[in-house]
């Protein structure tokens, strides 16, 4: 969706919800929780990530808990999208519901930490400006694209409910 670019933060397989949203901080507001996002595997992440940056994972990104703060913490830090070889199913739905585009992309191995990426969620494309390559991702189903275009499930439902009342 975005024409902005951001830098890649690259991690391996099975990045879990406990490292994205550590239990010890779960009772705190998301602004506080987000400061500890990925702390267990990359202590510098939350302090250095910039709005528009992209998190790149391997297989089964977001496995574990149903806590949507795992996605919310990334949104709070300004992460524009997550690109991974595969996602755990609850994280995938949570991220989309919150308006954070997540793209399934088999060919991410070439992406290096710090590469400049441009994400086009609607067309399912990741452009790697640092390496001059374009990666094609799996297309996002139409009903989810419509939801992301509205900004997530709640604004999507607001629109539907308003339509129903009109």
């Amino acid at each position, binding site marked *: 969706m975005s024409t902005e670019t951001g830098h890649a933060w690259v991690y391996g397989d*099975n990045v*879990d*919800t*406990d*490292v994205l949203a*550590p*239990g*010890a901080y*779960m*009772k*705190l507001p998301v602004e506080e929780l987000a400061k500890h996002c990925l*702390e*267990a*595997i990359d202590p510098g992440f939350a302090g250095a990530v910039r709005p528009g940056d992209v998190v790149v994972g391997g*297989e*089964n990104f977001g*496995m*574990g*808990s*149903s*806590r*949507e703060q795992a*996605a919310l913490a990334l949104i709070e830090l300004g992460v524009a999208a997550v690109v991974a070889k*595969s*996602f*755990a*199913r*609850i994280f995938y*739905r*949570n991220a989309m*519901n*919150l308006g954070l585009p997540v793209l399934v992309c088999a060919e991410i191995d070439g992406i290096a930490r710090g590469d400049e990426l441009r994400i086009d969620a609607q067309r399912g494309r990741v452009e790697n400006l640092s390496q001059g390559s374009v990666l094609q991702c799996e297309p996002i*189903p139409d*009903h989810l694209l419509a939801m992301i275009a509205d900004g*997530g*499930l*709640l604004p999507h*439902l*607001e629109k539907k*409910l308003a339509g129903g009342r009109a």
Partner: protein
Amino acid sequence: MTLAEKLVARAAGRDSVRPGEIVTCRVDLAMMHDSGGPRRVKPMLERLGVGVWDPAKVVVISDHYVPAVDAESAAILDLTRKWVQDAGIDAFHDMQGICHVVLPERGHLRPGLFVVGGDSHSTTGGAFGAFMIGIGSTEMAGVLATGEIWIRVPPTIRLGWLGRLGPGLSAKDMVLKMCGALGMSVGNYKALEYAGPAVAALDMTERMVLANMAAELGGKVGLIAPDETTLAYLRDAGAGPAEAGDWQTDPEAEIEATHDFDAGTLEPQVAAPHSPENAADVDAHAGVAIDQAYIGACTGAKLSDLHMAATVLRGRRVAPGVRLLVAPASTRTTQQAAADGTLAVLTEAGGILLPSGCGACAGLGAGVLAEGEVCISSTARNFQGRMGHAGSQVYLGSPYTVAAAAVAGRITDPRGMLTEQAA
């Protein structure tokens, strides 16, 4: 059709469905806890300007922040109690235990239901032949507002267990074996169905372990076809009329893959830090010294789990310098374990009782770990930092194996310590 397809078809109001189709399902029951529930969905419903679609179909269970340990957790519980009352929800089980155990215990589940739960281990409901999936809070707000949810019909993977478990082995060993052999994403977007004589021989609390840890195998659901064992449990729980009926996979149904295991040759399993898929035979980790042994969580502190621990701990003592913490999964579990003498065996051995709740398993309650400490736990997950400091180490094992490690002070094969069944 497979069991999963039959369950989805019913909820979607269709005669049949096929894997890959996206369908909208009517929700029969929605379950929430205090962490992902009212505190998160209340502002969302207010934003939408709607109430709960059907308060009689919603169950709320406080288990994450119980009992409150500080002002923040007290406020979360206070909000939960007030919202439940305002929303007109009668089925509120406050501080009665962990949601996945309390839900069937109080008769809310039956075969054939389509259920959503605001927790990843909601797959536990599959042990009762219900299609029960875990969802996040925004998704839950959508369900509460509309009574519906979209899903992609999952293909089914059959996990077959032949033979019979030997003494000192349990469903936890079975599911850790599968995590080690198949990995944590084998079930992603798929329905897992456990079957075979070794599964049929398990009682319901043990079947719940398999269904619960379908989450660790990545599964959307972890189903077990209902049978006489299921119906007997449901009668005792007062679940109302239930039938096994046609809730089983047809012989000619299309299965994506089958993985067979032999219960008869299964060794006790231990998963090393920081993943359940690091599971191996206990001998691979024998001798690892521990600081803490934890018997807790939805998957690891039901009555059957406490019985297993007691068969090891009867007449023995926890090793010096080691602490054994026991957090029964529900208040009813505590009552039953007190009545049959199990609690006395655990405490006489040196075990320390903790409140019923998610507790240290989720890094929330009493029993979290310091940097460098080593714990063996009957819980479901040992992700880095989940149970305390990021520099702590958590091994997973069955209640037998956790209890044996508490006695020995190090990880060991529990089969050398078995005594008569406690109850």
